[in-house]
C-alpha cells in the first residue's frame, strides 16, 4: 500500500488510477490537506492527527464502474474531516461507494455530503458509517446523501450510525427522489428543451458542492465535463 504523509498545507489530485490498489494518507498535526479523488482506488485510509483538517472531494462523474472504500480515522483531539461527493451515473455505470468516518478522540468533527444523479440503467450504492468511540466525547458528525433517479436507474443507501459516547451529536439523512416535474415544467415554459432543463437542474443540484472546490479544480471540473454542462 502506497503511503503519503502530508506535512504542510497542500492539495493533492489523484487522477484515475489504471492499476487499482490502496493508499495510506497521514495528515500531520495542524496541517490542512485537500484530496481530489476521481475513483479507481480500491481503498484509501486516511489518518488525521491533532487539529488537522482533511478535505476530500470525490468527483465521480466519468466512471463505468467503481468500487471505492474510504476510511477516515480521526485519531487525535480536534481533528476534522469534510467529505464532499459528486456522483453521476449514466448508461450502465455501476458505483459502489463505502465510507467510514471513525471518531477516536474527543472534540473531533466529521461531515459527509454526497449528491448523486443516476440515469439510464446505472446503479449507485452508498454506504456510510459514522462510528464514534467511547473516548470521543463532544464529537460532531453528520452524513447526508441525496440521490436523483431517472429512467431505470437503481439506488441503494445504507447510512449507519454506531455511537458509543453520549455527549455527541450525530445524524444522518438520506433522500432518494426524481427530478422535480414542476421545475422541469417551469424551465420548459421559459423555452428550454427537456435536455437543457435537466442539465440545468442537475447543475444546480451539484452547485452546493462545486462551489466548495478549490478554484483551479473547479475550472478544470467544468472544462472536463463541458459536454454535460454542470
Amino acid at each position, binding site marked *: 500500500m502506497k503511503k503519503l504523509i502530508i506535512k504542510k498545507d497542500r492539495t493533492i489530485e489523484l487522477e484515475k488510477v489504471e492499476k487499482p490498489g490502496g493508499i495510506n494518507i497521514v495528515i500531520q498535526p495542524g496541517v490542512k490537506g485537500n484530496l481530489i479523488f476521481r475513483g479507481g482506488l480500491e481503498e484509501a485510509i486516511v489518518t488525521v492527527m491533532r487539529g488537522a483538517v482533511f478535505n476530500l472531494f470525490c468527483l465521480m462523474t466519468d466512471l463505468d464502474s467503481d468500487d471505492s472504500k474510504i476510511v477516515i480515522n480521526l485519531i487525535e483531539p480536534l481533528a476534522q474531516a469534510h467529505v464532499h461527493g459528486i456522483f453521476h451515473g449514466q448508461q450502465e455505470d455501476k458505483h459502489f461507494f463505502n465510507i467510514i468516518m471513525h471518531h477516536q478522540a474527543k472534540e473531533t468533527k466529521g461531515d459527509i455530503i454526497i449528491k448523486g444523479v443516476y440515469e439510464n440503467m446505472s446503479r449507485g450504492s452508498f454506504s456510510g458509517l459514522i462510528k464514534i468511540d467511547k473516548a470521543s466525547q463532544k464529537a460532531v458528525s453528520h452524513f447526508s446523501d441525496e440521490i436523483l433517479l431517472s429512467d431505470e436507474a437503481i439506488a441503494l443507501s445504507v447510512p449507519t450510525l454506531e*455511537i458509543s459516547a453520549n455527549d455527541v451529536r450525530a445524524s444522518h439523512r438520506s433522500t432518494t427522489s426524481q427530478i422535480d416535474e414542476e421545475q422541469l415544467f417551469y424551465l420548459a415554459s421559459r423555452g428550454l428543451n427537456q435536455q437543457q432543463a435537466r442539465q440545468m437542474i442537475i447543475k444546480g443540484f451539484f452547485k452546493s458542492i462545486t462551489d466548495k472546490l478549490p478554484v483551479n479544480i473547479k475550472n478544470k471540473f467544468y472544462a472536463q465535463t463541458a459536454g454535460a454542462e454542470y
Partner: protein
Amino acid sequence: MKVNLQQLNRQAQKEKPDEMDYFHTSAKGLTDKTVKEISHYKNEPAWMQEERFRAYQTFLRQPMPAWGPDLSKIDFNDLYYYLRPTGQTARSWSEVPEAIRHTYDRLGLPEAEKKYLGGVMAQYESDAVYHSVQKKLEKKGVIFTDMDTGLRRYPEIVRKYFSTVVPAGDNKFAALNTAVWSGGSLLYIPAGVKVEFPLQAYFRINAEKVGQFERTLIIAEPGSFVHYVEGCTAPVYSTGSLHAAVVEIIVKPGARVRYTTVQNWSKNVYNIVTKRAFVMEEGVMEWVDGNLGSKVTMKYPSVYLLGRKARGEVLSIAFAGSGQHQDAGGKAIHGAPETSSSIISKSVSRGSGRTSYRGLVRVAKGMAGCRSNVVCDALLMNKNSRSDTYPTMDIRESATRVSHEATVGRVGEEQLFYLMSRGLSEQEAMSMIISGFIEPIARQLPVEFAAELNKLIELEMGGRVG
C-alpha cells in the same frame, strides 16, 4: 385506578411467581417427540401436525441470524416448549382458577376491563385461560378467540391464512414458532365492520424457563377496521427465557388495522418476534410498538404494500436500561404503485443499555409514485450507553420519493438548566424531557398504556411516582 397499573406490575415483578399446578408440562428440550406431543395434546387436525413437523425440520436447517444482538446464550434444549395451567379454557371470569385470578388482580386487569375496553383475553403460560368476547362483537360476526380454539372452531379460516404472511422458512425463530406455537389470538373482522373499541389481550410468562410461542392471525375483510392491543408483563425469575412470537395480518382492500404492543418482559427474556402485514388496495396498516423490557429484543414490524394506494405506518419506542439490548425497527416493502409508508422510531439508552434501529425500505421496479419517510431519533443518557442505526434504502424505481433521517444525541444542557431553574430536580427534569421526547408516539397509545409508559419512565429515572 389506571395510574396504579404500572405500580402493580412492578410489585408483581418483584414478588415470586405464584405457585401453580401445571396440568401438562412437556419435558425440557425440543425433539420430534415434543412437537408430536404438543399437537397430540391439542388434538389438532392432521394438516397442522404436518405443518409443525415441516417447520421443525426447517428450524433445524436454518442458521441463527449472523447479525444483530448476541443470541449465543439461548439454549434451545434448556427450555420448556409447552405448559398448560388448567385443563380447559374458562368461559367466564369466575371460572378462572384462584391463583391466576390473584395475579391478574394485582395487575389491575379486571379494572381495565370494567372500564370500557373490549374483549379481554388473558394468557397464562401457554394457553388462554380466560376469554370473554363481548356479545355485540359476536353479533357483528367478529371472531376474537385464542388461536387453539380458533383452530378447532374455524379450521377453514386458519387453514386458509396460516403461514401465508410469515412462512416457516422466513427465519429460524419463525420456524420454531410454527413448530411449537401455542396460544395467541385469532381475529377475523367481516367486511365493512368497524370495531369502535380496542380489543385487548394480556400475555404473561409466569414459570421459570417457559418458552412462549404465540401465534396471532388477524384478517380484516374489505372496509373493516380494528385496533388490537397487546401488552405483556412478567415476574422476575433467574434464568433466560425465550419468547418467539409470530404475528400475521392481512389487510384487505380499504380496511384498516392498528396493532399496538407494549412489551415489558422481565429483564432476562429473549424477545424475538416476527410481525408482518400484507396490505391490499387502499388498505392501511399501523404498527405501534413499545419495547421497554426484556434482555434482548429483536422486532421489526413490517408492512408489505401489495395494492395500489396502500399505506403502512410503524411507530416504535425503545427504552434500554443497563444490560438491555433493544434491536427494533421497521420494514416497508413497496410492491404496488402509489403506496406510502412512514416509520418513526424513538429510542432512549440508559446506563449500559443499547438501542438499535434496523430498517428497510424497498421500492420494487415499476412501482411509480411511492413515498416513504423514515425518522429515527435516539437519546443517550450515560457515557456507557450505546445507540446504532442501520437503515437500508433499496430503490429500484425513479418515480418515487424516499427520505430517511436519524439523529443521536444527549439531553440538552439548556433544557435541563431551564427546568431546574423552575424548581425541578435533575431527575424530574430528565424524565419530563424524555416524556416529551417520546410524546409523538405515546399519544398514539391507548390512554392507560400512555399512563403506564410515563410512570415507567419516572420509575426508571429513579424519580418519585405519582
